[in-house]
């Protein structure tokens, strides 16, 4: 990576953080949705203690995934609103830097929501959630979701169906990440001896690496106009 690439990537990410610091639109949208989702799950599943411990990882990750989709949709709408994406595309910067910059933003928002959510879930469901390894699973899991999401959100921006299509395109593709992440954090959350947790985290890291390579290579094809 050249210095110019890094400069452009950081500029794009800083732009997203600056806009978010001003409006707090994405984080409040995703945060509020996540809280509602946790509440709905706990009512809908009528969770007793044992059941809670078993599903808590799944609830956490389904919530994070849906919140991410919501945030990605809104983020892409903001990017397109004033023609911002076109402005990025006519700037003399590599497409990869746009991808990396947007990815940093998307990842940071999803990760923040996850980190805020964990202690809340910890309190609501009385499970020991605040552990370094859970944070590790959060970091790797949200990175995977954000990677796929950055490409698919860019792709959705140019279709007729717009927002409604993103969940349909994204859920199946994010499923491997979802499974690995909930396995990794599920065992950790219950406090049960989970010998597999390390292996799941490793698998998650591997998946992230593959997604980063594939999506990084494909992003240029998505934003360029035919």
């Amino acid at each position: 990576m050249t210095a110019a690439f890094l400069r452009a990537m950081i500029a794009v990410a800083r732009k997203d953080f600056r806009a978010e610091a001003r409006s707090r639109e994405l984080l409040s949208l995703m945060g509020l949705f996540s809280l509602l989702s946790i509440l709905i799950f706990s009512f809908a599943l009528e969770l007793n203690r044992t059941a809670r411990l078993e599903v808590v990882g799944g609830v956490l990750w389904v919530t994070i995934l849906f919140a991410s989709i919501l945030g990605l949709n809104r983020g892409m709408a903001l990017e397109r609103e004033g023609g911002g994406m076109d402005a990025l595309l006519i700037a003399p910067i590599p497409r990869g830097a746009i991808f990396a910059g947007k990815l940093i933003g998307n990842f940071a928002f999803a990760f923040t929501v996850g980190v805020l959510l964990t202690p809340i879930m910890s309190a609501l469901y009385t499970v020991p959630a605040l552990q370094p390894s859970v944070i590790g699973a959060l970091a790797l899991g949200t990175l995977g979701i954000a990677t796929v999401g950055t490409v698919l959100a860019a792709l959705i921006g140019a279709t007729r169906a717009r927002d409604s299509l993103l969940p349909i395109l994204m859920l199946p593709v994010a499923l491997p990440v979802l499974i690995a992440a909930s396995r990794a954090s599920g065992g950790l959350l219950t406090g049960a001896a989970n010998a597999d947790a390390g292996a799941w985290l490793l698998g998650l890291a591997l998946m992230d690496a593959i997604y980063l390579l594939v999506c990084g290579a494909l992003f240029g094809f998505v934003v360029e106009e035919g």
Partner: protein
Amino acid sequence: MALIEIEKLVKRYGFVPALRGIDLAVERGECVTLIGANGSGKSTLIRLLCGLSKPTSGTIRIGGWMIPGEAEAVRAQIGLIAHKPLLYEGLTGRENLVFFARLYGAKPDRVDAMLERVGLSKRADDPARAYSRGMMQRLSLARALLHEPDVLLFDEPYTGLDADSSATLDSIILETRAEGRTLIMALHDFERAARLSSRIVLLARGKVAHDSAEQGAAVDAAALAALYAAAGGSSGRINP
């Protein structure tokens, strides 16, 4: 060698041709207006020139750099003003310009100078969302001029502007001409085209139908209207 050289440029969307072979050379300092009906290929040509879209075949050479192939170097020499502002409404005017200065590697002190030049110094720290259409377009001008581009492209820049903002845009266009920049504009308005530009190119159905430089004729609105009518207006169906 001319600053901008377009050779055998063809652009198709699917099977639908938008440009059917454009050859055009623009010298440094010229101000070329593209006119033509909707679907004649004006906007497509502008999009190709700024690298937003890739040619189906043919080449564009700007300042010695080639599209396709060296699109990044070409984009560094170009400023684009479109009917969309190409700005972030969630940021302030100043933040927008600071961001684009970073992308283009322009000096940060250019930001204040540009805000001054387009008359937005007082409102620079308001969110762009609160700007009027005219202010947005002026900020857009500031963005396009930040990196001192050799070539300025305008794609229907007057869309939705009131009389005041149009006058500001007029004067800035004339100023940039005086600075020796090369301008290419897609316009609808014959009167304005005749007043601002040194050369008029009429596009019809994706081809150059008339070029005032070749004919050596003086540019005036009445003549343009006649040519426009003669070119047969709309070819329909083309959807850029």
